[in-house]
């Protein structure tokens, strides 16, 4: 395998030395382009009590093309489908090489705080969201409690997981 570009090395270092609050990204031991990611649900969102697991992969062309990011934790959100795929412009055509792992994860966190049912990926969820937002938020809360790690437990278990 070709040597890791300096950019990836530096981004990884900076993620460790200057972490983003509420977000962790740890490279896998056997593939430094593959990251285990956790994102805290933003406060004042139905996901606020949960910590969500994601995977992030930097393709060969990175940073000229976007990282591939996917939710591993089941989540009820109009822009995230059953497989955890995320509908977010900066992960697709609006990707810019000036963006980074850090900024992309912040965008995803922001997406949790601001679901956009008008540009849905999970159509059924988006329909629910549009028809009865209160109920949809309630379901999102229930799913968060059911599938996402709770924040209190997560603080102790993340150290375990990164091993």
């Amino acid at each position, binding site marked *: 395998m070709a040597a890791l570009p300096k950019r990836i090395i530096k981004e990884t270092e900076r993620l460790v030395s200057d972490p983003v609050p509420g977000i962790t990204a740890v490279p896998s031991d056997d593939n430094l382009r593959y990251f285990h990611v956790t994102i805290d649900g933003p406060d004042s969102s139905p996901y606020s009590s949960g910590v969500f697991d994601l995977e992030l992969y930097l393709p060969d*062309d990175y940073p*000229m093309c976007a990282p591939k990011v996917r939710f591993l934790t089941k989540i009820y959100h109009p822009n995230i489908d059953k497989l955890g795929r995320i509908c977010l412009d900066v992960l697709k055509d609006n990707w810019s090489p*000036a963006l980074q792992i850090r900024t992309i994860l912040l965008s995803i966190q922001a997406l949790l705080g601001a679901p956009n049912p008008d540009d849905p990926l999970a159509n059924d969820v988006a329909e629910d969201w549009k028809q009865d937002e209160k109920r949809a938020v309630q379901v999102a809360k229930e799913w968060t409690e059911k599938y996402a790690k709770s924040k209190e437990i997560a603080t102790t278990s993340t150290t375990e997981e990164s091993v």
Partner: protein
Amino acid sequence: MGNAPAKESRSRSHSQASTTSMISNLLPTILSSLGAGRSRARSYSGAFSVNTNNTNSAGLLGILGGSNSIGSAGGDKKKRQEEKVKQKELHYQDLVVRYYENVDGGYLAPYGTYKSNLDFNTEIVRNLVIARRLAPFYTPLQDFDPSWSDNELVVLLSQLTLHLIETAYSEDEDEDDDIDSRKLHKSANYYRRQEQRTKLKQIIAVAKETQKHEEQVFLEDKLKLKSTQSQDQSQILDLPSRDLLLALYRNASECPICFLYFPQHFNISRCCHQPICSECFVQIKRLDPHPPHDDPSQTSSNPNETPHTLISEPANCPFCAMPDFGVTYTSPSHISTGIEGMTKPGLFKSFANIPEDDSVIMDVSPSSPATGSSSLSPQRRSRMSGSSPVGGGYPARRRSSLAASDPAVVTIDMIRPDWEQKLISARNRLARKAATATAIHASNLLIDDNNSGRSSQAGSVLLRTMEDRMVEEALRLSLLDEEERRRKAQEDT
């Protein structure tokens, strides 16, 4: 594709083996043919015994195109293909970094940080660099610490290679790049694709060898320079002087895209004044032709128009997302070396006695702390040389944004002028696909018609309409082809 991958990989490894054995034969030919076509600063003799009289420049084409007869039809097509091969060769040879092809301490070809997307027009980019309209391709530093002493910095710089050969030419780029477009082309049969791939591989392998050779020349000349300080051989003068290295790299700063360290003379985005190194700049390009919206329902609303709805938009600025990304570049006023420069890089001397008041450059980067090395005063001087009154030109003193059409701006479309051609061929490809589908559809109807009896009145009407439609389709296609041909002809002139 089915089981194709296995086959491909087998023949790939085979072609690799044969490629390496061919290189030694091909290299002199290529070098000589290139030397004839372009004026290089240095003759390529020495490492190779080249007899220019015997090796004519078509030699390589002869070898590469040797098995061409399998699928080729007509000499015209063959000629065009040979022309293509020749252009590819030139392209890859242009991507070779040669130390004697330098501008203000940088080079005319990228260092090799990225291995893909090098499909920009090399001739245009070389000329832009020579015209000082685009920053030269400087050799990047992986790390930089302003507290390094001048001696440490110079030692580090002198160890750098011209090119990241192992990354740039690493082997796993098989399936992507320009080959793909031809793979999708429906008229290309398996053998031809295979042949073209092999040819490309050979061209790349030759370029890699050339780069290795250039690296060797660079190394040998550096050693020569060390051993014979006084001798002024013209080539050795193309090696940067200590003063030049320090003037360039003393205040190195980081490119925000690749995170590597370069001399401060960056290209500056026309819209938001952000620095970008040339190697990252040439990576930015249009997205491939695509339907206007991701939403498929919108594009399929009018099936007749599908081929023409493919669009291609200029790339946005990576920093501020302004459409039609472009940069300006102001070459440092105090460094003018190499091609069309005032001196040879080896003769570059920073002027002593420049007072320390030129804070122009210092206010941009943190002033480097005094270094505890033995020869402080010459270092000082050389550092100061990086700051003539006009400034080492960090953001080039440009205050306002510039339009993409401004004559000073280099846009990404300028270095890939073939984008329009690519869009047209993508549309044509789609049109042809649609036509094939229509033809298959039509022929199915015809067969149905045959079965139901040729004599029936309804049948013959249907047959006629089918025929009409096919003729129409054929006309449409030939019009498209004609359009493409005319466009090509126009580009050639």
